[in-house]
């Protein structure tokens, strides 16, 4: 049911020319995705999807639309090659899922490596009952430090882009006025 709705929204996004409608549809997509993740018992990820996908990125997209034109341009030539590449990539990905173990199998390879140790020892070693938190911030602390650095870098980069352009524009305006 949820996946059907996701597919419907995706088709609507692809067919839509007004970028404002696309942004609204992506909000619906994000909330559907969050519901899917809740069904899959991934509450932490669902919360992130709802807050970032439906919240912050919508605001950022709308702010971007405020800066640019809000209607998608007609393509200048037919896009058969991109369509071909997309279909082939999708087919390869679907083909790859065929050899995965069935969903939810406890003895899948990924559940036999370090996962049992994390689940068994997290209370004794870290006093933190939520295994997601203890894996994120403790067992995998280096990765999370990397993520924080990525957010830091991305934020600084976007701010430099937006600010830097404006400063150059101001200088040009001053040059033309004098």
């Amino acid at each position: 049911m949820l996946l059907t709705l996701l597919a419907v929204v995706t088709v609507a996004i692809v067919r839509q020319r007004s970028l404002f409608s696309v942004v609204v549809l992506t909000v619906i997509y994000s909330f559907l995705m969050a519901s899917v993740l809740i069904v899959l018992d991934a509450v932490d990820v669902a919360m992130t999807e709802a807050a970032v996908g439906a919240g912050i990125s919508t605001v950022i997209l709308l702010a971007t639309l405020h800066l640019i034109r809000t209607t998608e341009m007609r393509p200048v030539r037919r896009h058969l090659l991109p369509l071909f590449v997309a279909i082939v990539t999708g087919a390869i990905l679907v083909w790859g899922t065929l050899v995965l173990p069935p969903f939810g199998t406890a003895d899948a390879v990924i559940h036999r490596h370090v996962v049992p140790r994390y689940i068994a020892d997290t209370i004794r070693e870290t006093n933190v009952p939520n295994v997601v938190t203890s894996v994120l911030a403790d067992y995998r602390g280096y990765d999370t430090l990397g993520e924080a650095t990525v957010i830091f870098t991305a934020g600084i980069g976007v701010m430099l882009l937006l600010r830097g352009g404006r400063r150059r524009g101001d200088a040009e305006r001053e040059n033309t006025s004098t």
Partner: protein
Amino acid sequence: MSLDLILRVGTKLILPFILLFALYVQFHGDFGPGGGFQAGVITAGMVILLAITFGLEAAQRIAPQALVERMIPLGVLIYAGTGVAGLIMGKNYLDYSVFSHDPAHGHELGIFLVEVGVLITVAGTMTALFYAFVERGR
């Protein structure tokens, strides 16, 4: 102008609860879903809601641009500093067991510090991005 009265009053009512929920997500992340990243995004969402309803100036009164921009590196520094503290106290980088006599308590404290760092960086980055876009659009 009077049409957005409900919006303004509703926003005023809901703002403290958004912040409270963000803090709940932050400090309850050890026991339930959530953590620094989610709490940071919710905090930034509160500032953005304030800016959308009451204007950028109102938002920058409670979250000044200079503060928000300093929060971005500060959070990463708290995270990395937690690791360096482990180094100084004679263990590996990001080994939290040094922070307390009981290693488990040390880990709990370390996770707490690291999550605070993530919260500060994420909230700062998201708010600063929003400010940058809004100022660019003027």
